[in-house]
């Protein structure tokens, strides 16, 4: 069993509105997989389908060799963690309480923690470098700190796969890199498969092993970043002018947006 997630002929619609059509791809174990695409292309829905939050109509999604429909909520939660976008923080749990909640799928109904659970939570907290915040309340943290805490919670779940919905949205540059580096480290050191939805094509180019480009609920292209992130594909998908060249940093594509007033110069 080489693939962590396998999707075959997935269709999904909310009532009459078709959101996803003819989706088939697989994600290798211990890889960094990023799903990109314009707004409304069905990225988040796809992620929710994989995580079992929404149920697919047929056995079209397999997680670790078994259809998501055949998992109980709790067993699925032991295999797969999900970090949602805009996690609400209305109630002020402390950082430690929140991270410890990640142990719930491994605990009984009341979630009474043992020494071991505390240890795992402590390790997760130091992995994402939020040690200094353990006793702080969640609503007192900055966006970047909160995101790292939610990541620690997901790690605390000890899953084989982590799904993230735009974890870098609304973060500043240094926090974006920090979160992405953490995800990479998670994959390298703990062998966790990371699946992520992102708006940022440049970050996707830098970090992904493989990419999936969705457009209007269909798969437009999938594969290695340099294969997917070409000038023609991106212009068609996003319907805007841009340049693609090789990044000066490494062996991956760099995407540059072209503002309308510079269009004449680049219209080659």
């Amino acid at each position: 069993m080489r693939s962590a997630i396998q999707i075959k002929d997935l269709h999904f619609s909310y009532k009459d509105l078709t959101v996803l059509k003819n989706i088939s791809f697989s994600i290798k174990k211990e890889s960094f997989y990023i799903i990109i695409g314009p707004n409304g292309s069905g990225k988040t829905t796809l992620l929710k389908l994989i995580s079992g939050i929404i149920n697919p109509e047929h056995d079209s999604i397999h997680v670790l060799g078994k259809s998501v429909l055949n998992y109980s909520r709790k067993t699925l939660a032991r295999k797969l963690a999900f970090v949602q976008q805009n996690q609400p923080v209305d109630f002020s749990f402390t950082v430690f309480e929140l991270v410890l909640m990640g142990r719930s799928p491994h605990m009984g109904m009341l979630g009474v923690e043992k020494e071991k659970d505390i240890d795992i939570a402590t390790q997760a907290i130091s992995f994402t470098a939020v040690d200094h915040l353990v006793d702080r309340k969640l609503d007192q943290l900055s966006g970047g700190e909160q995101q790292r805490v939610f990541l620690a919670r997901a790690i605390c779940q000890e899953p084989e796969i982590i799904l993230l919905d735009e974890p870098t949205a609304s973060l500043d540059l240094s926090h974006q890199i920090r979160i992405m580096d953490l995800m990479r480290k998670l994959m390298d050191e703990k062998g966790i498969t990371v699946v992520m939805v992102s708006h940022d094509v440049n970050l996707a180019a830098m970090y992904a092993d493989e990419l999936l480009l969705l457009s209007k609920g269909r798969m437009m292209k999938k594969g290695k970043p340099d294969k997917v992130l070409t000038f023609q594909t991106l212009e068609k998908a996003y319907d805007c002018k841009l340049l693609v060249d090789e990044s000066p940093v490494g062996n991956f594509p760099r995407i540059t947006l072209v503002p309308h007033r510079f269009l004449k110069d680049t219209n080659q």
Partner: protein
Amino acid sequence: MNINSPFLLKKMFFVCMILMGALVLSVFLGLSMGSSGYEFNAVLKSFLTGDVFHSKTDTIIWHIRFPRVLLSILVGAALSLGGLVFQALLRNPLAEPYILGISGGSAIGAILGILAGFSYFPGIGLFSFVGSMTTLALILILSTGHSILKKDSLILSGVMVNAFCGAITMFLISLTLDSRLHNVMFWLMGDLSNLDIHQVLILAVVLLPCFIVIFVFSHSMNLMMLGKDSAQSMGVNIKFVTLILLGITSLMVSATVSTCGPIGFVGLVIPHLFRLIIGQDNRVLVPACILGGGSYMILCDILSRTLPEHGEIPPGVITAIIGAPLFILLLIKTRR
């Protein structure tokens, strides 16, 4: 690395011990104080010797005050828990059975039952339960969709449902011309008197299993406070848990309302007080609300019995005088 979070069980034990002490003290005060005077010595004597029913004082203490104190504990605990559950499930710190109009709906059912001349159990209780479930469904439909997360829309639906229930209640009262009117009016303001020990015991039999079920789901409530998707991804079957908890809470609220009228704001004051002191963990908050809510209700009832020189202030008035300003304070705080 220094983590100050103590083990759950230790914290639970500690909190329960303190609140148990507070409850015992409240019970003692509740038995000792009343409109006929203060009898600390007599209560202490029967506490210590086990001797009861010797004098007129003993009769007042054990036949009149004791059922009332017991009833206060049950009502206070049930209403506090009701508030706690609604606040967690709807992820809205302002949610409370009374404010959401669920007590009001329950009251309509109960009044219909009283006017139809049914007995307290099961007739009025059943009517009251149907009333509370109907209003709960109405509120959820009104504020459903994306807006269920929005604090204002939920509270607004509650206010409207409440106003509507109030109008229907008034309509029903206007139809009543006989002696039942006084009963209904007094009951509407929250009434802990006029109950014998058997009715209190029936209420206890209904409420105690509800308390246990809510405690069992308290960790699921923790997870659900992080949002629907997160809770689900951590293994919570949210449809099941939501259905059970809302059903159980409506049952508790209608059971208390049909017994002693709609008593408001307890479910707001107690959970907020304890959240402030012991934190967000519902596993500790559930026992704290049961014990603390019980003590709070006894104290409110003592005030209602001893403040006026003649007669009583309805306890519902006392809880509203304490709770309503707090609600306004919280509203201002959450707007910021």
